[in-house]
């Protein structure tokens, strides 16, 4: 009997093995499951897996450059639509999706995220974040993206929470309150993973908040450290705020920063001092508003700062993505942080110590005669907002704003969406009330928007000179991505997605998508095919070549 069973088992095993090998012969396709966990090492070395887009700016140095070159200057005109994903909530999409081994994670207004097949745009799962009714948000219901570590996504929400979501199912793992939303705090930016921590900023600079940058433990949501962007009593810089104004001075941190593993420094921008347009109640330089901060990657301590606009009274947040690269400036090889600021000046700064290297305007400006040897602005007198109004350039939205710039190591050029405009600035007297807007004025345009122009400008960061420029219609809020195919991708305010030659600025391809682009492009690969993705209006479009 036993022998009989053994023989039967052996026969069965032989039969099954024979069937498998027959299947293998019949089907040459080998399938592998989508998605694999993301380690810190993979994030540090993200450029070694260009088929994925693993963080908001593509890599920790935030260059937004991909080494993919299947789509290139010779065939980009052949790009065709592969799929479109319609966001159900009608709002504007500022999302920069992530792609991890064939899965795309798209955030949606107000604070939702959906996982789709990156080849087809069809859904795996979605997470809808429940929001309270009494939100305090200044400028729309935005969310710009998620961060990933392990098998967990981390997302900022409009009610100033940070949530952790299972990347395989969309299940909520934890949800922590970062700050009180009814006091004026909110969160819109993608977090940044630094080693084993989730680093994240906040918004609320128009509500008299006190800004900070936080780091959370990814497993528990427990706060690891908090660094305030306005020094407390007794701390260095607190005396740059008159009276108690530091308590309500804004300096929010609403865009994602960068990280350098060799220097172990986190680079993060800070927003306007509050109230935005009335500086009378906050005399002094107002540290660390409108600054680049370099924070210790383990402790969050401020190692150095560079304040672009001391005592800002025009709402020119230093909320831009810092870009890091190795450059030779003035005969010295050095790690450089490049920054095109809302105040219309471009800066090259030593990333190790914050020393100013070079700077000059990249967009029309009337407020400063130039920069001094330390990079501080030499102001034109009489450009402060008044009760009657005064014309100043750049306007409130700046020479550029939060939308991502790019840098290509192939061309060694820095690319920015620039706006040449002007606006009348007004000052008003307001008292702080918790949870109420606290801006002290505002602005209005004196001409139709069509009278102005936006540009893609390519800047040589070693000289800060503009090498080429490409005109687009005004007040674009699209980011820029470059590739080793020699391409620059971006979008426009009038609903185009387009590609330029990154070396020359020559137009190569465009397609009208019909609605404003508020987002930055990404590029990725699935099964060897390169794709390019952009959000326009309420739709996420993905393009590729004919297979």
């Amino acid at each position, binding site marked *: 009997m036993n022998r009989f069973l053994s023989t039967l088992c052996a026969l069965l095993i032989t039969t099954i093995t024979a069937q498998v090998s027959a299947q293998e012969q019949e089907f040459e396709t080998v399938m592998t499951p989508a998605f694999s966990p993301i380690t810190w090492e993979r994030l540090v070395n993200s450029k070694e897996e260009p088929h994925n887009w693993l963080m908001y700016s593509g890599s920790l140095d935030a260059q937004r450059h991909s080494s993919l070159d299947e789509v290139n200057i010779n065939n980009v005109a052949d790009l065709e639509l592969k799929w479109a994903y319609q966001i159900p*909530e*009608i*709002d*504007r999409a500022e999302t920069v999706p992530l792609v991890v081994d064939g899965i795309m994670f798209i955030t949606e207004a107000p604070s939702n995220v959906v996982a789709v097949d990156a080849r087809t745009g069809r859904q795996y799962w979605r997470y809808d974040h429940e929001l309270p*009714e*009494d*939100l305090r*948000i*200044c*400028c*729309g*219901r935005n969310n710009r993206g998620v961060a990933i570590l392990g098998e967990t996504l981390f997302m900022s929400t409009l009610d100033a929470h940070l949530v952790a979501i299972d990347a395989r199912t969309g299940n909520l793992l934890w949800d922590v309150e970062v700050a009180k939303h009814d006091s004026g705090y909110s969160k819109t930016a993608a977090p940044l993973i630094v080693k084993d921590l989730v680093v994240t900023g906040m918004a609320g600079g*128009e509500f008299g908040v006190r800004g900070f940058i936080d780091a959370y433990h990814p497993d528990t949501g427990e706060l690891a450290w908090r660094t305030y962007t306005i020094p407390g009593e007794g701390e260095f810089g607190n005396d740059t705020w008159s009276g108690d104004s530091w308590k309500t001075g804004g300096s929010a941190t609403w865009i994602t920063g960068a990280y350098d593993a060799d220097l172990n420094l986190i680079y993060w921008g800070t927003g306007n001092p509050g109230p935005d347009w009335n500086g009378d109640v906050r005399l002094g330089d107002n540290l660390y508003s409108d600054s680049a901060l370099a924070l210790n990657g383990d402790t969050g301590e401020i190692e150095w700062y560079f304040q672009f606009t001391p005592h800002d009274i025009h709402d020119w947040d230093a909320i831009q993505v810092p870009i890091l690269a190795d450059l030779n400036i003035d005969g010295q090889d050095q790690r450089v942080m490049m920054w095109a600021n809302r105040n219309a000046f471009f800066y090259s700064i030593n990333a190790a110590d914050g020393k100013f290297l070079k700077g000059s305007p990249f967009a029309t400006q009337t407020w400063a005669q130039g920069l001094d040897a330390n990079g501080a602005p030499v102001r034109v007198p009489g450009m402060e907002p008044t009760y009657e109004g005064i014309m100043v350039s750049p306007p409130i*939205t700046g020479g550029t704003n939060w939308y991502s710039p790019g840098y290509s190591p192939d061309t060694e050029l820095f690319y920015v969406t620039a706006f040449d405009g002007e606006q*009348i600035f*007004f000052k*008003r007297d*307001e008292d702080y009330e918790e*949870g*109420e*807007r606290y*801006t002290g*004025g*505002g*602005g*209005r*345009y004196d001409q*139709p*928007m*069509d*009278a102005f122009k936006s540009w893609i400008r390519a800047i040589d960061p070693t000289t800060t000179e503009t090498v080429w420029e490409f*005109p*687009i*219609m005004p*007040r674009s*809020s699209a980011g820029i991505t470059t590739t080793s195919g020699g391409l620059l991708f971006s979008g*426009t*305010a*009038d*609903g*185009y997605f*387009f590609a330029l030659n990154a070396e020359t600025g020559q*137009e190569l391809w*465009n397609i*009208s998508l019909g609605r*404003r682009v508020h987002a930055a492009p990404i590029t990725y690969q699935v099964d060897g095919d390169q794709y390019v993705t952009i959000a326009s209006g309420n739709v996420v479009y993905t393009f590729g070549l004919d297979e």
Partner: protein
Amino acid sequence: MHLKASILWKGLFSIGALSLILVGLPSSAEDAGTLYNTTYDVLQGERYFERQCSRCHGFDAKGNDETGAPDLTGRLSRANNPVGIFNVVRNGVPNTAMLPVDADLPDAQVWQVVSYIESLRYDPASVELDGNPDAGLALFLNNGDCASCHMVNGQGGRLGPDLSRVGESTRPEDLMTAITNPHEDVAPRWWTLEITGPDGVTRSGFRMGEDSFSVRIMDNDSNLWSYQKNNIASIERIERSTMPSYDGAMSESELDDLVAYLFSLRREGN
């Protein structure tokens, strides 16, 4: 131009003293919100608007294409009376960036905002003009030859804005400026573009549409042309009006008549 009665807020005709007594008492969208529309209320509403609303809607309430906030100085899409405006301000517009105001904000203050928004528009009934609209119509059709360029109710030319409802959105003094100094404020739609196309032909026309990569014009013979910018030899933009100035071409009283006619052009019952 002489305006017999200067432009008055609707609120000045209401019972201002009573509104002061009622400030602080509870009210709702259903009751007489228009009590809160004295000059004082409008100014209070403007103050609140500048602080709480201008970030999206603009300091001049003319909207913002970047935030998607609509222009509040023209026709409103979500409300057509004060109660409607009150409800939008109080409740917000669900699933959009238009959030409700603070739930603790007293209704009286919401009404002040409503009064400010109302004040951005014109109450034509409060305006009395010197001119005679019937005489203005005759000028429009004959001496002025306006109809060769402008349409009114489907009749007229295509070389200027349709004026069928111009009285709803334009103040008499602005109408006068548009007639006597047409270059002062030319909407981008009425700029002229001179384009030399891929066929080597230079065509001039009104700027129907222009974007980052393409442009569309209508020439003086009403032909519609579309160009790709990367395919044209040259493009020149002229931001002046094609309309002649009527300053000196008509007497002062004739200009008043013409303004009176144009100001009368509104949708019936508006």
